[in-house]
């Protein structure tokens, strides 16, 4: 088989096997084309001299392995990405959770935390934040450390502010952060309602029941069997009448859980209609 990059298909499989055996991280259900590209990218960025050296470091160097996980998983995210989705959260979904005495939200695959802060801002404006808790989880401990700081590049704030306004926000977006050199530090009252924790969607189990689960642009990296497995995990973790929100290009159609879910409008949000 031809190879467009520095890493062959066989080498990808060797690494996947090493990482499972040595570190317990299971990438076997990841879509290969994308995973291969991430591994090849890491190999080039880190200027490895040979596959053998790359493999040795990945197996034996725990610090390097953390970097490996961060490099092969995709951590591109932004605040209020897809403003239309956040408008739906603001106008329909979160207000409908007001009847609960306590609102539990699971943000699965939270990466560096931009979505968690976006949701917290909307909850605050709807006067729901005081009785909400956002469980923000990711496979990758390094990004959770960043998320916990509540600091994002100041250079992104213009873009995020535009997204915020497009999603129906009416406040002055800059009132939520203070500038500190090149970073924007977000109001600590937002973070007070977040719990950051590692959770591996592939191997970890359900840990609570939620009224809203968000997992956007994570399932695209998984093959079909793993997608279905994770959807069942979400189903087990969602209360009846709770909501499941996926990314713009993701769907629960054709999955085993689809029968007990009803689509909300035209967005990628489904409501659980029977237990």
């Amino acid at each position: 088989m031809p190879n467009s990059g520095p890493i062959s298909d066989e080498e990808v499989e060797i690494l996947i096997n090493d990482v499972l055996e040595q570190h317990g991280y299971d990438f076997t259900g990841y879509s290969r084309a994308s995973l291969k590209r991430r591994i090849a990218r890491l190999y080039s960025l880190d200027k490895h001299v040979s596959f053998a050296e790359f493999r040795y470091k990945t197996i034996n160097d725990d610090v390097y392995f953390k970097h490996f996980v961060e490099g092969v998983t995709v951590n591109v995210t932004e605040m209020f990405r897809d403003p239309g989705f956040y408008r739906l959260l603001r106008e329909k979904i979160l207000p409908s959770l007001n009847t609960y005495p306590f609102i539990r939200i699971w943000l699965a695959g939270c990466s560096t935390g931009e979505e968690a802060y976006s949701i917290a801002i909307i909850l605050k404006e709807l006067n729901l934040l005081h009785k909400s808790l956002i469980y923000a989880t990711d496979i990758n401990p390094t990004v959770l450390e960043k998320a916990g700081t509540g600091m994002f590049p100041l250079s992104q704030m213009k873009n995020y502010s535009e997204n915020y306004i497009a999603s129906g926000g009416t406040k002055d977006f800059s009132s939520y952060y203070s500038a500190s050199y090149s970073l924007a530090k977000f109001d600590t009252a937002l973070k007070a309602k977040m719990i950051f924790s590692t959770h591996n969607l592939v191997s970890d189990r359900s840990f609570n029941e939620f009224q809203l689960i968000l997992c956007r642009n994570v399932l695209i990296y998984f093959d079909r069997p793993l997608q279905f497995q994770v959807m069942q995990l979400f189903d087990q973790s969602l209360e009846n009448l709770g909501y499941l929100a996926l990314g713009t290009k993701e769907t629960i159609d054709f999955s085993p859980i689809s029968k007990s879910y009803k689509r909300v409008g035209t967005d990628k949000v489904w409501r659980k209609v029977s237990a």
Partner: protein
Amino acid sequence: MSKQRALIIGGSAGSLDVLLKVLPALDINLDFAIIIVIHRKQGTDSLLTDLLAHRTKLKVKEADEKEKILDGNVYIAPSDYHLLIEKDFTFSLDYSEKINYSRPSIDVTFQSAADAYGEGLVCLLLSGSNADGVNGLIATKKGGGITLVQNPNSAQVTYMPEQAILRADVSAILDIEAMANYINSLSKNN
């Protein structure tokens, strides 16, 4: 068993006009899939799919993740995701960093397709203002596929095809008028 084949067309500024001229002249019984990766603004997906669907009798649709790629269909890469081809000839989407300031990146699709299709791959690079796609053409050629480039003289923006000719081993340089014929002749149904 015959090998799977695909034609992938990449382009940026000035490439939409080329597609609008080429698509109406394509045969409706092509025995390979056509995949189109065009740089454009976010959120204009259905607009582009509709626009192109009106120009051909071939089925035109946006590529869905995990969708099986079928011969005779025209697939459009959605905006703001990279589009990759898996070994089982299904699509994957990827929201990783932009490549060459672009998402979708033409290089990403060409390179993953070179791995999947090998000699069965034909890549055509059109008008555009950056060099996205050139590395993908190099990978295509390395995998035994065919590399095609729009003649820069006929391109609204010449940089992309010029870079391709300069840096990649190009199988043929095509004028817009010659493209449909060339593509139709690739089909064994003709």
